[in-house]
């Protein structure tokens, strides 16, 4: 009974450290979750609590888990910015290595625009990302797009920092 308790506690602590280190290591400025769904990990070994607890180290949880980073855009623009090309290239490499993964690319906008115009702008942003990935060799069959315009802001605040975060394309793994 006591052993079980210790084991469980240890397990939870390791899991907690693992979870924290994962976020910090991969996406330090972005801990929001929804838009950064990890690619499904095929390495089943890492999911075993027994192995994790025996190691007793946070590194044990460092895996091939992959989180897509949001692609940010300038105001009323949908062209990819130079600083996002590198991020997207990395995403494309990951997609090449994980051929079974399909991605939905969501286009989002800040609140500076009407609902209808932003819907079109969001679609253009998601399509810019899709075109890039297709040029990189990812099959268009694995990529779908959707625009939410300004309807699903990541940051609901009304300031420059929020607007910058909301002008984005988010890659979400799924069917």
């Amino acid at each position: 009974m006591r052993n079980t308790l210790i084991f469980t506690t240890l397990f939870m602590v390791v899991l907690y450290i693992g979870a924290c280190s994962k976020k910090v290591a991969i996406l330090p400025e972005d801990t929001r979750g929804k838009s950064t769904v990890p690619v499904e990990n095929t390495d089943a070994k890492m999911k075993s609590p027994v192995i994790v607890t025996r190691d007793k180290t946070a590194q044990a949880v460092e895996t091939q888990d992959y989180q897509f980073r949001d692609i940010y855009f300038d105001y009323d623009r949908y062209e990819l910015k130079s600083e996002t090309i590198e991020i997207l290239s990395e995403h494309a490499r990951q997609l090449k290595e994980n051929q079974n993964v399909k991605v939905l690319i969501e286009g989002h906008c800040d609140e500076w625009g009407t609902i209808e115009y932003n819907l079109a702008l969001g679609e253009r942003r998601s399509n810019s990302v899709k075109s890039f990935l297709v040029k990189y060799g990812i099959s268009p069959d694995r990529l779908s797009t959707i625009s939410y315009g300004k309807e699903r802001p990541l940051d609901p605040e009304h300031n420059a920092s929020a607007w910058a975060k909301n002008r984005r394309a988010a890659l979400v793994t799924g069917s």
Partner: protein
Amino acid sequence: MKSTSFIFNLLVLCLTMLTDSSGQNDVYMRVQSENYQPVYLYIKPLQSKDRPELARQLQNYIISDLEKTRFFKIILTPDPDKILLNDSASTADFGGLQTISQAYFEGQLEWAQNSVALRGTLQGLPERYLIFTQKYTSPQASIRWMAHRIADDIVLQLTGQPGIASTQILFINKSKNLALMDTDGDNIRQITNNKSLNMSPCWSPAGDKVAFISYIKNNPELIIMNLENKETSKLSKQKATYSSPIWSPDGKKIAFTLIKDGNSDIYVMDNQGNNLKRLTDNSSIDTSPSWSPTGREIAFTSDRSGSPQIYIMDSNGQNVHRLTYETNYSDSPVWSPKGELVAFVAREKTGFHIYSIDVNGENLRCLTDGRGSNENPSWSPDGSKLTFASNRNGNWNIYIINSDGSGLSQISTTGANTSPKWSPRLSREVAKG
């Protein structure tokens, strides 16, 4: 001396606040100042021994509807024979149409178990000749709707213009569902109930259906709902993003935006979703179509010049020309019911403001003041007012303003309300509460 001026200032402040908060007074003052001659309408208080509360409620609804039109000076009088006729009122002038200047309305109520009947009589003064008499019946739960019908009939008889009390405002509520409300913001009913995202609602010209965009399985689809039985049908047939649907004035077609491969263009199809025709073919964003009342032209938004501006084309896509030049970032065009104006939004420092412009590109007017953002204008069916969404008081709510920019009033208070669409005149109550 100092304290006197302080009290005076306080008084002025109070008065300003009073007129500010009660839009009706404000409107009435403006009407007077613009040399309108209101019709003096004397109303006999509605009486009922059995149900005095309901009688008073019905009376208040009628008076409230009539006051909102700006056409009347209402005087409640229990004894028509002792009416003091106002000498200054000769004949009222509604756009060159000479009409009656003083009238008297009385209603006789009859209550049945669950229904109510009102025999309404309108007479011209001072001769007391009969203008019209009509019997209205209604379930007791719907006396508000009965009041709207009565008010609209009085407006039509005394001004020659149909009233707008029996209209509704369709909007998107906090849960991103479609909802309806009366034009005073009461009687809110949610008419869709899904956990999806719903947007861009609009009315059929007959007011019996609504179209809107709903995200179903990660795809924005174009849906039509019959308001009588709430049945829905899907008109979108392509795997693409559908947006901003709008019925043609004859109800036979629907114009909308179709976004495929990142490009957004305006299309038209019949009201069954067939016979798709492309109207714009441009690599820029083309969106938000609005039919002229004749159905011959369509106003729309395009960023083909570099920033979004309003354009007009024939309804077959030909003869495109740009309407707006003086405003930057212009969007959401809505053609006025009489056809002479287009209202739209243009971006300024604090957000969007509502503008109107003559269809020949002249007489640009800003209708809203400098507070907050104001979006998605929609005309009342008589063209006298516009409804729009604004966050001027913090939250997004629905407002109404006269077409000259006067008489701003906030009609919804629940917050996160957007995309208001004013109904056409409705022949019957839709989606009863």
